[in-house]
């Protein structure tokens, strides 16, 4: 199933991963400075997951995310300036400042929303997939969930429904080892989340979520199955998060030094860079150029967010109903 990835594809993949990383690193810094309100969950460390999946998605495909949604948004093509402004609660934000980090959505790019409710997304993608199926143009829908979410009843129900209705859905479980402070070895009652696939009549795979290429290849197979009417799939990405559960987390449930070690050993971007410069004839200069580009983009996004106006008082009352 492996599709040949062109140099351009690979540079795109790098750009996306790097954009996510820079975005998150910067939000981390700005949050600490006090510029960003609310609950913020960062995706750093998991970039290969969203990126390897996102590269397969067409504009009319749909994606439902969770509380840790920035990476999924970027990989689905949501504009970074609007996202940053949204996180700052500004009127220029993707959701005009009314949603915030946990609720970024952009239906035009197929992004159905981050979600503050663990397990909120999987039922929704079943509906998006039903719409795609009825349209008959080979569209699909993907739901991203964590290991913690894998225990939520809504998620099981969605998997069952997807098979019963033979929907073009892919359920991607990003198993980063923790749900808040709780270890997935405690909360998930089987060894691998992928084992649950059999109980829902779909294929299940375990993938190294730090490896862009592995993610990309596994999703290709699931996407092909979905688009051709073969029904849903489950993929478990084993990966790590580099920050706390949310900004402010003491992370004491992690053994000392775990994060530093992971950043060294499992970083998907380092690994990607090493591989593409080694095997695909991409130069360090090409990557550095992208790094600069991305740094500039994020700077601009922060500047845009900081200087953007707050919502108007009257915004409080709009958008409850179509006419209100």
């Amino acid at each position: 199933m492996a599709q040949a990835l062109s140099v351009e594809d690979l540079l795109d993949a790098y750009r996306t991963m790097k954009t996510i990383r820079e975005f998150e690193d910067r939000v981390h810094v700005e949050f600490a400075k006090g510029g960003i309100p609310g609950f913020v969950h960062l995706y750093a460390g998991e970039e290969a997951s969203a990126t390897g999946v996102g590269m397969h998605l067409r504009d009319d495909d749909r994606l439902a995310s969770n509380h840790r949604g920035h990476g999924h948004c970027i990989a689905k093509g949501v504009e970074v300036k609007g996202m940053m402004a949204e996180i700052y609660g500004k009127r220029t934000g993707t959701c005009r400042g009314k949603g915030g980090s946990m609720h970024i959505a952009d239906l035009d790019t197929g992004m159905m929303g981050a979600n503050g409710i663990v397990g909120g997304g999987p039922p929704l993608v079943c509906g998006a997939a039903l719409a795609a199926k009825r349209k008959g143009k080979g569209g699909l829908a993907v739901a991203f969930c964590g290991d913690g979410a894998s225990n939520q009843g809504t998620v099981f129900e969605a998997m069952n429904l997807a098979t019963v209705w033979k929907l073009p859905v892919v359920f991607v479980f990003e198993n980063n080892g923790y749900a808040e402070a709780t270890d997935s070895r405690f909360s998930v009652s089987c060894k691998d989340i992928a084992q649950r696939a059999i109980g829902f009549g779909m294929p299940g795979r375990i993938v190294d979520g730090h490896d862009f290429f592995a993610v990309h290849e596994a999703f290709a197979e699931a996407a092909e199955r979905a688009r051709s009417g073969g029904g849903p799939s489950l993929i478990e990405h084993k990966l790590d998060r580099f920050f706390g559960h949310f900004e402010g987390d003491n992370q004491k449930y992690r053994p000392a030094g775990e994060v530093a070690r992971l950043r060294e050993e499992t970083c998907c971007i380092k690994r990607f860079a090493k591989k593409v410069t080694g095997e695909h004839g991409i130069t360090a200069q090409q990557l550095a150029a992208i790094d600069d580009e991305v740094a500039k983009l994020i700077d601009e996004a922060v500047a845009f967010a900081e200087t953007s106006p707050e919502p108007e008082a009257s915004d409080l009352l709009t958008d409850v109903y179509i006419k209100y």
Partner: protein
Amino acid sequence: MARKITYQQAINEAIDQEMARDENIVLMGEDVVGGSGSDGEMDAWGGVLGVTKGLYGKYGDRIMDTPISESGFVGAAVGAAASGLRPICELMFIDFMGVCFDQIFNQAAKFRYMFGGKAETPVVIRTMYGAGFRAAAQHSQCLYPLFTHIPGLKVVLPSSPYDVKGLLIQAIRDNDPVIFCEHKVLYTMEGDVPEESYTIPFGEANIVREGDDVTIVAFGRMVQQALKAATALAKEGISCEVIDPRTTSPLDEDSILESVENTGRLVVVDEASPRCGMAADISALVARKGFSSLKAPIEVVTPPHTPVPFAGKLEDLYVPNPDKIAAAVRATAGYNA
């Protein structure tokens, strides 16, 4: 051309006419086909009480049975609505909301607001409510006050065959999420219903009976009970105006306030539980915006603050009836400050 059909037939007809008109409409729910996967008749049931019977024959795979996974399929309806379809989703009994409420109140109801006005979620959730079937505590509740509490939902309580057809067509065409509450005892009620398609706008109360002495606001099945009480009271010389708001959200405040301005006396009749319910909601509205016209305490007629009992004798005592309504009207009519 109007002819007599039942409330249940009017629902079926509304769905049928709308599905013929707009192919983006799909219908899903447990046993709405009623026989999927079986070796017998595929559409043996057409809904647990047969309300959607016959639609599968006409619309095939646009009518979909579901597993018993309310979060799954209600959420799918919501997601489909945000993706271009116009789903009608049946939650068999409103009592089952507790296994899928999140998809309704945190997802469907909030998309538009959370997403800065950029989402539309045209989903209709049809559901059966109310006591009277000896179905006990978990199959007899009203619960629509819970939905009415939630910003972003519209809530409809049709009280007659005519209304149920027009309101359901309106609900299907509406672009916001709608909770459409059908009283199980009304399914067999007959009434004049035009064959052709028509809509009844949300937020416009129906003055089902005009009167000058006391305003009665009643919801759903209670509208008929209120009318019976009003008829009886007329013989005693008490003239009641009976108002059916038809939708609790949006609410036609003006019709209620205008009536109370004229009568100065209000009785609210509702089958839902009393605390934080519709009776309280309407009372509060009038106590605030209609205070200057009020000549007497606002009376309410609701069940007691108890679950719905099983035994027929107790269930009959539980549900408001014309006698209790009449008693409340007499009390308020006879009150002099």
